[in-house]
């Protein structure tokens, strides 16, 4: 069976190579891929959209409809994780530590619990002593990571970057918080409800921009017709539309990254993780 699979893989590879025999040379300026639509994008993008970065223009304007659904794919991954993994049943055993003495309490009765405060604090089952260096470094680092993420989102139409990259960076700053402290710290600051709303809202900002274009009398996602809403910015209206949808993508990606992380590490219980 294994040999058979090997033969099939080899044959498929040979077949794919056979198809490349007529490919143009690597980097050939006269290849169809660089002459047909690509040439149009390079020549006309700035004139038509006023976005200096034409990769962003292709992604969020010329083919913005695809990108909307790519964002929806990410949203689907998030909601799929939530639907399949989220477990609302409470934990059976609780661990606490007595803050003044450092004594660890293990309560096996699921009905009893201690109030969290100055005296007692939560503790994970697989408890690791708090590492001062890790905590401090991450605490200092996280705000800078977040500002950088916002920069990547906001500057997407001028330089490489955009909503997907910025959203992932922002999401990873939240994940870093969960890793350096613990999952509860993250869940307490960024509630599940907020993340769920953000995930849907991000994609809705994108789709809503499209619907707004419909309402203003244009085609779906035709940012040009939004000009009356932003007086004095008629030249840059398409670049502005791109920025709005990039922000939407950023919010959605940030929320979904965090949802996926929380659900996977805590097996859907949102109590303790890595």
């Amino acid at each position: 069976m294994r040999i058979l699979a090997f033969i099939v893989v080899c044959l498929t590879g040979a077949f794919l190579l056979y198809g490349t025999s007529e490919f143009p040379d690597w980097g050939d300026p006269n290849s169809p891929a660089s002459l047909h639509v690509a040439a149009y994008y390079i020549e006309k993008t700035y004139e038509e959209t006023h976005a200096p970065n034409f990769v962003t223009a292709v992604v969020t304007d010329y083919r913005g409809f695809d990108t909307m659904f790519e964002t929806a794919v990410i949203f689907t991954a998030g909601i799929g994780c939530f639907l399949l993994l989220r477990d609302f049943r409470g934990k059976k055993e609780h661990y606490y530590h007595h803050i003044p003495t450092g004594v660890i309490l293990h309560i096996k009765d699921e009905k009893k619990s201690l109030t969290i405060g100055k005296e007692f604090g939560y503790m994970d089952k697989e408890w690791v002593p708090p590492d001062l260096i890790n905590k401090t470094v991450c605490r200092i680092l996280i705000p800078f990571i977040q500002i950088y993420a916002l920069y990547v989102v906001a500057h997407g139409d001028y330089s490489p970057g955009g909503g997907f990259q910025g959203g992932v960076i922002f999401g990873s700053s939240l994940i870093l918080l969960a890793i350096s402290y613990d999952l509860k710290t993250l869940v307490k600051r960024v509630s599940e409800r907020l993340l769920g709303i953000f995930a849907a809202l991000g994609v809705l900002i994108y789709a809503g921009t499209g619907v707004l274009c419909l309402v203003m009398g244009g085609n779906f996602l035709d940012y040009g017709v939004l000009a009356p809403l932003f007086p004095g910015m008629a030249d840059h209206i398409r670049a502005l539309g791109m920025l709005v949808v990039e922000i939407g993508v950023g919010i959605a990606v940030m929320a979904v990254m965090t949802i996926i992380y929380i659900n996977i590490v805590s097996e859907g219980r949102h109590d303790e993780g890595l």
Partner: protein
Amino acid sequence: MENYPALIVVAPFVTGLLAGLFVWIEKRLSYPIVLAGLFISSFSAVQVLIRVMESGPIQYKMGGWSPPIGIEYRIDLLNAMVLCLVSGIAFLNLIASYRSAEKEIGDRVSSYYTVYNLFLTGLLGVTITGDLFNLYVLIEITSLTSYAQVAMGDRDRGPLASLNYIFIGVIGASFYLLGVGYLYMYTGSLNMADVAVLIKGSQGSSTVLVAFILCILGIWIKMALFPFHVWLPNAYTYSPVIFARVVAPLMTKVMVYIMLRLMITVFGYDYIFNTLNLSDAVVWLATIAVLAGGVMALAQKNLKKMLTYIIVSEIGYMVGGAWMGNQLGMTGAILHILNDALMTFALFLAVGNMVYRIDRVDITDLKGLFGKMPWTMAGFVLAAFSIVGVPPTCGFFSKWYLILGAMEKGAYHFAAALIISSLICAVLFFKVFEICFFESGSHGHDHSSHGPVAIEEAPVSMLIISGLVSLSLIVAGFYSGAIVNTIILPFLK
């Protein structure tokens, strides 16, 4: 209104997202929002169909960019028909499955509706688009949502079925994507009509050949044509009823539509049937698929699983008809997309009603069901007759065109396979009827099989939709001549 084509896809998409938002604010609102979205979608689809019938194909430019620079929607008679079918079935199913979804999915049902609508956005977007890459993106959405929904079904077997589906589905989708990549290397364009113009006259090109084979192979895997069908029976059997009812009639049919679109619009008859001359080989493959599906269905003990193997067999019908290379075969294949979607929907509605009452639908569990659920069984019988191909129902007419097409080409083996598989279906369904009708139910504690059995029907909303769809099989049968003359033949000309 000019924007109906966009609304068909955007309405379920936006309402799905809104429902996902309202899960966290006011749970009860998510169902009506989703329902409204699907209603707008089906209304727009009907409007578009009327327009296309009056004044020819419609073109809609996304973002106002003309193709090939931007993405376009291009709607002709074929996809207008499929759009009405998909959005209509999705809307009806959402009404019919409200109670069963609440029972099966429980407290998560409000966020489930988001996934349901995204799945249908995918199917509708795949059908309406005129862009090869946009089609891939929406296949991705369709697949991802269906993996999630399959895994939500049967607690023990759902996740495994979903995992198998993921492995095979990903291979299919990446084959298609590779094919599109090859086409892009050769032409520099992603628009279907544009690519078709650019590859005309490059009959001997190895790149186009590889692209063609990869695209078709990818779609065959997604469609579950016989040797690639292994993921389908388990995935459809163990998914929740609300999903099984919509995926079984629509998913495979939409994939058949994509195959037709690639054959007709992108690569062209001339390339497929004259240059490559693939007709004979594929018709043989389809013949084997028809027979294999039927034989495997005979071996099943679970009613749902038996029906999924019948779907595998029906895919063989449509592929065979489409690759016959003559007008009759193609007419049969297109008509069968419509008819098979309706028949499968009717069957799964009836089975869903049974599952709602008796949970397990192994064939032995069905004893005495005619007495217990008479209306459900009436719908089931009608749908079964249509699958077998009994004349006044619509299943007969598409089979008739397929057989005529096979005769014209001289593919007698395919015609024979159609008749044999009809006989197999007859055997299968009469076996089920026999158990349901003659064997008394042994579910009750008292063994009073002599007295009249208490009627325990499914809820009225489920019954009404089930009855309507079953009756529509006869209506579609009566109007099949009209459908062929006003939609299919003008499209093929």
